[in-house]
């Protein structure tokens, strides 16, 4: 990839408050996959997913002045709100399929309210997912690979404790203890991440 984080940082490095810099990076890291998954789950094509992300970025770009005029909230918080609105607008902008006649189009317009709720729920869910996945990365790096594998196979893949234990040459108690501890750790990190997001 031609765009390493280093080149991208060059502009932002001049910003005084490192929190704002970090906030921007965190924002793109979390929201890019969210946007992608949201779009794909809704049956949009690759190019539409890309467009959606582009329009989120453009919304941010367009409304930065608003934040400047009225910085009533923290930068990151503001970013999240702008992104949320942009996604919502894009997802609920009417029928994706070409309507065969005018009435279909009008029907679709009436359904918008319903779609709003669905879309909001979806956005929230994808957001949670992304937080969990980030937390998992953090936890995974801090423990032994074996311990993580045991957790993954048991909890995520749903294998039985017995088969994981036999396969990995560990006792049942060992596998069970490991997965509980990983789970606890994961909970702690998820809570921390959500805290910094607030």
């Amino acid at each position: 990839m031609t765009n390493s984080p280093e080149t991208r940082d060059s502009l932002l490095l001049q910003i005084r408050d490192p929190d704002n810099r970090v906030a921007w990076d965190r924002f793109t890291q979390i929201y890019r996959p969210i946007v992608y998954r949201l779009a794909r789950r809704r049956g949009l094509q690759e190019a539409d997913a890309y467009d959606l992300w582009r329009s989120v970025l453009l919304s941010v770009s367009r409304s930065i002045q608003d934040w400047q005029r009225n910085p009533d909230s923290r930068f990151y918080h503001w970013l999240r709100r702008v992104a949320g609105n942009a996604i919502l607008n894009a997802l609920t902008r009417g029928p994706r399929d070409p309507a065969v006649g005018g009435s279909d189009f009008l029907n679709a317009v009436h359904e918008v309210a319903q779609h709003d709720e669905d879309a909001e729920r979806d956005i929230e869910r994808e957001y949670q997912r992304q937080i969990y996945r980030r937390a998992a990365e953090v936890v995974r790096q801090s423990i032994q690979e074996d311990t993580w594998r045991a957790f993954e196979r048991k909890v995520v893949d749903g294998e039985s404790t017995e088969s994981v234990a036999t396969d990995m040459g560990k006792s049942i108690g060992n596998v069970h203890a490991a997965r509980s501890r990983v789970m606890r750790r994961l909970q702690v990190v998820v809570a921390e991440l959500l805290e910094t997001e607030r």
Partner: protein
Amino acid sequence: MTPKIQTCRQDQLAAFLDGRLTPREEDDLQSHLDDCASCRRRLDELAAAEDSWTSARSFLKDDAYDRTVLSGYHDSSDHSDEQSVIPPQIAQVLNLLQPTDDPAMLGRLGGYEVSGVVGSGGMGIVLKAFDRPLDRIVAIKVMAPHLATSGAARQRFSREARAAAAVLHPNVIAIYGVSTDASLPYLVMPYVGGASLQKRLDSQGPLPVADILRISIQLAAGLAAAHEQGLVHRDIKPANILLDHGVDRLVITDFGLARAVDDASMTRTGVIAGTPQYMSPEQARGDAVDARSDLFSLGSVLYTMCTGRVPFRADSPYGVLRLITDTKPRAIREINPEIPEWLCRIVQRLHVKMPADRYQSAQEVTALLTQCLAHVTQPTLHPLPNSVASLPKRLSARLQILSSVTIVTAAVIIFAAMNRPGSKPDQISPAPLAAAAQSAVASTAAPPDETVEQDERTIDESRNVSPFDPSKLDAWDDQLDPVLKEVEQKLQEVLPTD
């Protein structure tokens, strides 16, 4: 030897989770857990609430977005010599074959003895196999295991395979059999020994006019037969066109299966290999397609045969899609002056962005090209068909009228949309404009076959099988560089800097 703790020490459970036990105590507790189910349960409850376990499971599970691509991804980065390594997708299928008695064979699938791998793509892999009872060599297309786990994808595979089997035409690959019950759904077809049109173009570049016509006549005839059965190919491209013996006979393969492929192959290979290059504008936009979409793709194949290069070329799949929807390809005769003007006109007509203004049926194109071929081989006996001899001025005038009608209709609809309750005009982004314009186009065009449309929508569920490719997201950054730069510049203006 660790002595087992017989009594339950609940206070130790919490301490263990927080890492406050000595290594010795931890060992003891773990041996106790071996036997004590109630402590195991208690430990789970202490570690996290019930719904957190559920969240962890559902959120951390690699869904279809992650799974396949990640495995393919590692493979390509780990091994520079791709030829010597069996791609995981192929290995996976080969592992699922039943054992065979014949040492020369790789394994058995259904009643077929598999002797080799012909190739692989986004949808699955193609095996070469021997049909012993009928003493013939066949090609078996096996659905990729990651797709086979999706019920919707299987259904689609089955439905479309049956539809393809119903098309009996010398230029459409025959379907000998379909099996969708087993863990590996597959499709049995004749084995075609010849090279694909893609290979031919790669080695030969632009083709002679007579060959171009012979190939496109058969292509159009095959398409006409399929369209008659209500089947749209959706993935007409040189790689799907097999030349059996030179150009004497050609067969179109991958009939109707394209839909399941498009997402998977595009995402999987990341960049261009998924060839959106031959897509129609309506496909590129993700709209519903009909037979005329195949005609646009036919135009692109013709263009490639004339010039030796694809009509819409860009660095990224997204760039290609944009070119397809928004631009005209470079004039054929600028690249290859030997192509006659009338052939360029035919390609242009196939390449019109609006389906309603293309030729309306593959049959019509077949007849037209047949007359053209007669003219090329015996110019004195057969004049060029009138419709291509010169550009009918009426057409361009008609096009203008039609597009102005469309614009007016679109404007009316947009106006209605802007006045809908709860939406302010400034919230209207270009996207709904496009959607409204499209509905306007759809309403002025001939009504599409209702049943086909319906089918389209139900089929869409299986789009969920498309994998998630992290490298794709990085590619987005590359493409969005100007936008990101702009955002960052504004951030710099707004956020305090040194």
